[in-house]
């Protein structure tokens, strides 16, 4: 497959882009000749970019003078694929966008379709959804903590976090049969009720997790190197963050307690009491501390949701939307017709547009669904928090050292699947 004399079209494409085109006149005070500046690819394949993010970094010695994120290296055309699938089949496609918070993608999409359909989600399904959402938030924060500590040199924390995350993935496998991209959320509720032993295992995990989080806190907060690298580096105040549209732990670290679970509660979040960790200065240490504290809050929510888990159906009774249970198919003809109609063509959604925001581990994740009355969505767009938060990177990093840039990219927690969609 080597390209031989004529370049294959992939190779020609990439080499056609040279840095001069991307170069912009650099108005850096005090640097007249650009001989001292070095433009470097902090490129798609790099251990510290948390995915295939390419940062065009202009360096003056150790100091970062200008940074330009170049993305699109894992663009999969998910929004285009979602447009020619029926509503029911879009869920697995949408889940694969932000591959650390897959339950949140499904929740945003399913919430939007339920609002369009005005389908009523039973209370038990809402509680089950919250349990899985908060467990997924913990799992996402664990991968963030592991890889960020890896970037700062604390390699063993990576293995501890994976040990905890394995337990959470076992819970997902127990309730839905698959570790990742479980397609557990359906329009109108969840696809299956939780098996009998699930509640006991989740309580065990909820007992173990705070103690483990204390261990991580003890190791990292006592480590002078980590503190030196995080405290006081690359701060950004709340106003600039708001003008850049940044939401989530980055905004809360700067002091603005904006969290959609409290501000606009959805899926019965108002039944639980939990606190929102908020930082003060807005530097890397606050971002780290806010996310670490969120793990404890998520554990509290899961425990309260388990205590208050109501009885009742786990999916909406409306047969137009939800599949009838298997045993009913043998007896009632009507269930068979519903089943056949749903499986072949899928349910139709009244025409309209909806923008459904929820709180994902990285910020406001919203799904815009436009339906034209057929059984396929006309447009599915995900407002991904990492995509918007990435714009704040250049404001944070200009003028700081390379080591601080690596710590800032780690604390930004960008997920390239969500950015490139």
């Amino acid at each position, binding site marked *: 497959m080597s390209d031989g004399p004529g370049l294959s079209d992939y190779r020609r494409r990439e080499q056609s882009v040279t840095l001069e085109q991307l170069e912009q006149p650099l108005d850096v005070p005090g640097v007249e000749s650009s001989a001292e500046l070095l433009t470097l690819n902090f490129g798609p394949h790099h251990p510290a970019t948390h995915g295939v993010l390419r940062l065009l970094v202009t360096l003056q010695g150790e100091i970062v003078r200008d940074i330009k994120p170049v993305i699109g290296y894992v663009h999969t055309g998910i929004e285009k694929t979602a447009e020619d699938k029926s509503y029911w089949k879009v869920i697995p496609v949408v889940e694969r966008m932000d591959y650390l918070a897959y339950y949140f993608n499904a929740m945003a999409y399913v919430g939007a379709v339920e609002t369009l359909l005005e389908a009523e989600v039973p209370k038990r399904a809402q509680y089950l959804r919250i349990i899985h959402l908060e467990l997924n938030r913990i799992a996402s924060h664990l991968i963030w903590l592991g890889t960020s500590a890896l970037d700062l040199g604390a390699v063993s924390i990576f293995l501890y976090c994976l040990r905890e995350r394995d337990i959470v993935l076992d819970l997902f496998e127990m309730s839905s049969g698959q570790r990742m991209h479980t397609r557990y959320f359906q329009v109108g509720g969840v696809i299956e009720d939780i098996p009998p032993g699930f509640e006991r295992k989740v309580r065990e995990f909820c007992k173990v997790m705070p103690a483990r989080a204390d261990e991580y806190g003890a190791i990292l907060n006592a480590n002078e190197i980590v503190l030196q690298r995080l405290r006081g580096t690359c701060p950004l105040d709340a106003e600039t963050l708001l003008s850049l549209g940044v939401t989530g732990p980055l905004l809360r670290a700067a002091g603005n307690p904006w969290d959609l679970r409290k*501000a606009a509660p959805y899926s019965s979040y108002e039944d639980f009491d939990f606190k929102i960790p908020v930082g003060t200065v807005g530097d890397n240490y606050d971002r780290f501390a806010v996310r670490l504290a969120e793990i404890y809050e998520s554990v509290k929510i899961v425990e309260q949701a388990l205590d208050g888990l109501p009885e009742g159906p786990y999916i909406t009774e409306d047969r137009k939307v939800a599949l009838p249970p298997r045993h009913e198919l043998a007896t009632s003809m009507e269930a068979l017709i519903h089943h056949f109609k749903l499986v072949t063509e899928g349910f139709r959604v009244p025409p*309209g547009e*909806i923008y459904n925001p929820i709180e994902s581990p990285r910020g406001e994740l919203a799904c815009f669904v436009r339906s034209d009355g057929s059984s396929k969505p006309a447009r599915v767009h995900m407002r991904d928090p990492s995509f918007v938060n990435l714009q704040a990177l250049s404001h944070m990093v200009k003028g700081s050292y390379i080591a601080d840039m690596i710590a800032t990219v780690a604390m930004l927690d960008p997920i390239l699947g969500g950015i490139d969609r």
Partner: protein
Amino acid sequence: MPDATGLELLAQELGDSVLETVYFRNRATLEIDPETVCSVLRGLRDRGFTLLASVHGVDYHPSEPRLGVHYELLDMARVDRVTVKLRVGLDAPEVDSVTPEWPTADHQEREIYDMFGVVFRGHPNLRRILMPEDYEGHPQRRDFPVGGEPVIFTRDERKWLEARE
């Protein structure tokens, strides 16, 4: 959410640039004239909608004018959301860019340009963001083929090899 009457009041205050107001599933949407997008957003910002949450494009293929751009605005004090929608034809897909006033729209407008071909006048760095720089065509338009190719399974490997010679 501004309820139906609040939406009508908002529309009158913003004057004739609002073409239509839609109140659907208690969410407010203002459809505006594309030329006045900057002034409408500035007016809404004065009324408390300080955070521009999202800018995204939609292709209303069968109906004209075809390319739509949506602006989702959020008022954090009153926890209030409003959507500003504008429609642009395929012949003159030109809209004023809001990036100078709202820096968050930078990458999102580049994505709409990359995926739908709507040119934003005044954008500091309008270039493709997701597709390769020298890619032809705007993939998320509805008439752009979904693409994809048949997968080479072991059973028809021979067929592919002959096809390649």
